[in-house]
């Protein structure tokens, strides 16, 4: 009798453990709920407001939003795909799109009838896979510009107008290099362009470091490689060959990382993805300027006592200024338990109705022109001039915008490029070593 009791207890305990495990990953999906994930905490209130509008229009349907930090977001999403606990809809990034398309975890969205002309140029086309199906609906866009400390610029004798009309070249760095040299101050108070400047004991760097930039250099070297006319791959989308072996690319990289050797840009050793990104360096007064994306406008604006302003990226050898224009999308997971509700929610997310509401929060530029206008107005209301980010999209004559590289094996490309670019920046490895890495990458793409 006693043994039977113990057996029963042990059985009950084991069962409860097993079922506990199973329930731990549950996302609370049901026919009436659409689960939605995003990573940007700044955007959460905007999308909560959008969800309220959606729920009003679709009585009986509820949107459950989960926000996770960038790093955890992708880990949890991957685990979710494996365990079957993925959300119905999630915010998607181009960098991951190729891999998700390979893994066949995304639901085609062709029937949503997304018109390219309804969104800012290029945004809708990026989300069509190699199989011709659409896997994402345009959600927002961002560009890169130069954030700078207004007081430091004034002390250096540089006006906003001057900083907005800089140009560069890979030979002597042009007026851009002169400006950041001027913004650099060593511990004796000497500026980077003054005789006796001590490059080994810099107090304030002209340009913050945002690391090596891995395979894309979005907020590091891409404004320069872009304005030098270089492209990541042989085709705008789904390229089959990367071009890191190009002499143009390598000469730009050599010059750009060379700014650190001259003491004008913070060295690689000052960067840490956890503790010291470029915005932290600007906030701490350790750097006068930093290239960063539009998604950081609110963050920089929040640095008290720093008088942060923004300037256009410098014009390059092609005569044009350049910036990556990256857009996020909303995707539905193939294993979604509520595809019908998910489709309705994604359609709503892609509509002017939702994007205008999101724009009014002034935290991101929505993909539709009306949403973008609402965002510009909202930023203006907060006293923020965001023209350095919007001009490149509006003015195709003086600006070149380009997309994030979209290819297969994106994760492998990142994994191979990261240590190589770090070695070039941090350890002075010759840029020509990228020839070999490029060969390895293209070999993988050939598979």
């Amino acid at each position, binding site marked *: 009798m006693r043994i039977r009791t113990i057996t029963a207890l042990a059985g009950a*305990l084991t069962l409860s453990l097993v079922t506990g495990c199973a329930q731990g990953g549950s996302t609370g999906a049901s026919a009436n709920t659409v689960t939605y994930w995003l990573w940007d905490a700044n955007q959460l209130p905007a999308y909560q407001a959008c969800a309220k509008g959606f729920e009003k229009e679709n009585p009986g349907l509820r949107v459950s939003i989960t926000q996770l930090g960038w790093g955890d977001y992708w880990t949890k999403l991957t685990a979710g795909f494996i365990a079957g606990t993925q959300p119905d809809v999630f915010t998607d990034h181009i960098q991951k799109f190729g891999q998700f398309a390979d893994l066949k975890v995304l639901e085609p969205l062709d029937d949503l009838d997304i018109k390219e002309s309804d969104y800012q140029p290029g945004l809708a086309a990026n989300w069509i896979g190699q199989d011709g199906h659409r896997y994402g609906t345009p959600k927002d866009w961002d560009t890169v510009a130069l954030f700078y400390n207004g007081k430091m610029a004034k002390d250096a004798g540089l006006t906003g107008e001057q900083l907005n009309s800089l140009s560069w070249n890979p030979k002597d760095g042009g007026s851009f290099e002169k400006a950041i040299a001027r913004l650099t101050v060593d511990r004796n108070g000497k500026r980077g362009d003054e005789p006796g400047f001590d490059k080994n004991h810099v107090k304030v760097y002209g340009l913050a470091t945002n690391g090596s930039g891995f395979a894309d250099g979005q907020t590091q070297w891409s404004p320069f490689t872009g304005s030098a006319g270089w492209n990541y791959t042989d085709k705008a989308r789904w390229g089959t060959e990367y071009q890191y072996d190009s002499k143009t690319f390598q000469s730009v990289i050599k010059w750009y990382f060379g700014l650190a050797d001259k003491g004008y840009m913070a060295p690689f050793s000052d960067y840490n993805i956890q503790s*010291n990104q470029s915005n932290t360096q600007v906030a701490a007064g350790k750097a006068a300027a930093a290239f960063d994306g539009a998604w950081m406008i609110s963050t920089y604006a929040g640095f008290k006592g720093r008088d942060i302003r923004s300037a256009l990226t410098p014009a390059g050898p092609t005569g044009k200024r350049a910036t990556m224009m990256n857009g996020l999308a909303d995707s539905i997971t193939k294993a979604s338990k509520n595809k019908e509700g998910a489709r309705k929610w994604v359609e709503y997310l892609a509509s002017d109705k939702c994007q205008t509401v999101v724009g009014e929060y002034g935290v991101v530029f929505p993909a539709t022109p009306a949403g973008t206008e609402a965002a510009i107005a909202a930023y203006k209301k907060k006293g923020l001039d965001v023209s350095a980010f919007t001009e490149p999209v509006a003015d195709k004559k003086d600006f070149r915008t380009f997309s994030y590289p979209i290819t297969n094996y994106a994760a492998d490309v990142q994994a191979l490029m990261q240590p190589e670019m770090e070695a070039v920046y941090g350890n002075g490895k010759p840029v020509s070593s990228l020839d070999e890495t490029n060969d390895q990458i293209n070999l993988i793409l050939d598979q």
Partner: protein
Amino acid sequence: MTVASSSPPSRLPLSGAKAVVPTRKAKARARGDGALAAVFIAPAMLGFLVFLLWPTLRGIYLSFTRFNLLTPAEWVGLDNYVRMVNDPIFWNSLTVTVEYVVINIGVQTVAALAIAVLLQRLTQSALLRGIVLTPYLMSNVVAGLVWLWILDTQLGIGNEIITALGADRIPFLADETWAIPTIALINVWRHVGYTALLLFAGLQAIPNHLYEAARVDGASEWRMFWRITMPLLRPVLAVVLIMTVIGSFQVFDTVAVTTAGGPANATNVLQYYIYGSAFGRFQFGYASAMSVALLVVLSAITILQYRLTRAGQTDLG
């Protein structure tokens, strides 16, 4: 003949005594004990089978496949192992891991031994023992992040102190020469107290009269350490070493939060490379092959250590 009247315990027959033949009832009881034992063992056995044995066997199987977790595994024979042998990043990861283990275990063992001996010979304070253990109460991730902030090249308080003393900033976690020793020492800081307490427990088992006799003979503390403490602590020290070496080879979390394998693969330890290959690049087959290699390396090191240190024998005669 009073001695003869004291009968030996029935389960421990003396030589020459008749073997105790279990009765049917005793046999039945033994069977009953077996069933009860099985019930008690069942939860642990279930855990062992589900969480250890099955994943290990499946991992070995997956190492012979190409597998991205979302589509069925495809048998590729020895391809993953051939790739591993030819993969310079794998060899770099193995080298970096060994470098980490040597620094981590070397410093930690010497420091822990010193702390344990000092605790035993100088003080009986429970408070001190508690203080020594404090860093171990912190999670690895928190310890890693706290040290990351302290040692940050540009903003860390550690480097502020270094520059205030007139020296140049040291890129502790951002330079390929410094990064591995720094991570190894962060983990020494966290684990040394725990290791010291394990050794301290081992020291408690050494009879005090041995030290008293040595002292009467005029032996110094140094001589007593080498002639009494070390030989008699050897079995405990061996087990502690085996455990800490295995743990050290599996370093992951501190790397993940401080350097993410950088700069330029300088801290891309084996576990981190395996993780990146599996969950970053979805190459679960290749990651499994590297995990099997790690299992083989760890088994070989453990057996070697066990043999060399005679961990199963004591010199306490």
